[in-house]
């Protein structure tokens, strides 16, 4: 009987403790800076173009091959505003099979991609492909 009473006392005590619940849609979770949500591209504000040069390293190293990138000649090289000779042309990320492993961030030579805090990506359709614009706005969508 004593063991049962001990258990009953424990539950009684925690009844009067503060609930630990984070009421999600009203309260946002407190995410640490390293949290890996879905990847996003970084915008180089000095030059006005993405850091990404479309070198395809991430596409090659992605374990699920959910990245598709192409590159083009950078039009800004001609007028001397940018040092990047090549720039990303198309960038597609198949969100539905991204595993948030951050291999792309690790292998990127230009630090052009990073894991954002975006995690609310539920949708009604299976084909959820982010294009370049979406990828660049990922950061604003989910915070730092």
């Amino acid at each position: 009987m004593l063991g049962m009473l001990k258990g009953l006392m424990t539950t009684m005590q925690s009844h009067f403790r503060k609930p630990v619940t984070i009421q999600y849609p009203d309260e946002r979770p407190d995410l640490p800076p390293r949290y890996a949500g879905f990847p996003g591209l970084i915008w180089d504000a000095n030059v006005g173009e993405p850091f990404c040069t479309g070198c395809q390293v991430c596409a090659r190293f992605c374990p699920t091959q959910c990245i598709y990138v192409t590159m083009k000649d950078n039009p800004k090289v001609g007028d001397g505003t940018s040092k990047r000779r090549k720039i990303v042309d198309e960038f597609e990320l198949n969100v539905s099979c991204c595993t948030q492993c951050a291999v792309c961030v690790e292998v990127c030579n230009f630090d052009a991609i990073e894991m954002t805090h975006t995690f609310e990506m539920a949708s009604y359709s299976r084909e959820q492909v982010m294009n370049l614009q979406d990828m660049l706005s990922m950061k604003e969508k989910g915070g730092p």
Partner: protein
Amino acid sequence: MPEWVESIIRVAIAIGFVLTTVLVLIWLERKVIGHIQQRLGPMRTGFHGFLQSPADAVKLLVKEDIIPAAADRWAFQLAPALVFVPIFLTVVSIPFTRTLVVRNLDLGLFYVFAISSISIVGIVMAGWASGNKYALLGSVRAGAQMVSYEIPLVFSILGVAMVAGSLNLETIVDAQRGLWYIVLQPVGMFIFLVASLAELNRTPFDIPVAESEVVGGPYVEYSGIRWGVFFLSEYANTFIISALAAVVFLAGWRGPLLPGWLWFLIKTYAIILIIFWFRATLPRLRIDQLMTFAWKLLLPLAFVNLLITGLYLVYDWPRWILFVASVAVLAVASRLVYVVGRA
């Protein structure tokens, strides 16, 4: 007003009251257990989830009603009614206050137990008719459990009837003027609560409906409102058993200052909260341990209680002797729980 009209009105009010209570109870249980587990329970449907149970009820009403191909159609459809009706019949003789009672029967206590034990037929029927092995296992477990626990339950209440000298619930409450029977019959109260937990299929005796073993037991194949009826009767039963305990051991509507019906509700809900508290804490017994517990411990204990009560009546002992003897018996028994359980 002719008498039959009045009776119908009383019955309607009683059933309406029980149905609302059930909705409140389901919400209350989720909130209480939620807070015990340091979370909040329903929050987003109405104020603090107050509309949660009506929403569940409406959803169950408009849900598809499936009758499995392997089921025995007739028995399958009849079973929920057989569980539901007896439980509501027992409401008839539970006195909320002296006037707030559908019909005060002379054999009220007897009537309540006689009627409420019918519902086991419905449960066994549901399990058998479903054509599912888990349901069958669950209903066999339910049958065994209910039959064994009915006996200590009845014997525990017999002590009260002896002391009060009546089976009329109103007389029993009146006899508790000054001294509640929880003091005179602590052993009876203990056995009553434990056995009624088993009757209600509640933790730690929720073996027939054990989720992790038989996946919901007899109700596994039921869907929609038919399942809702089982769910509803379970909670109605909880309320009625708690109300009965409040009437028999805690002097029903008796109490200072506050109106009678409020006292009645306070006592009933106190017992209900204890049941919820148990549910949130205790693990479940095994079926053979459950049987051992009923036959080797509760039943002898009930007999000892009867014996002491009888001696007290025959030799006209002072009341404190009955109290001391009962507490001693309980102390010995609590030690025995462990010893018998291990055997």
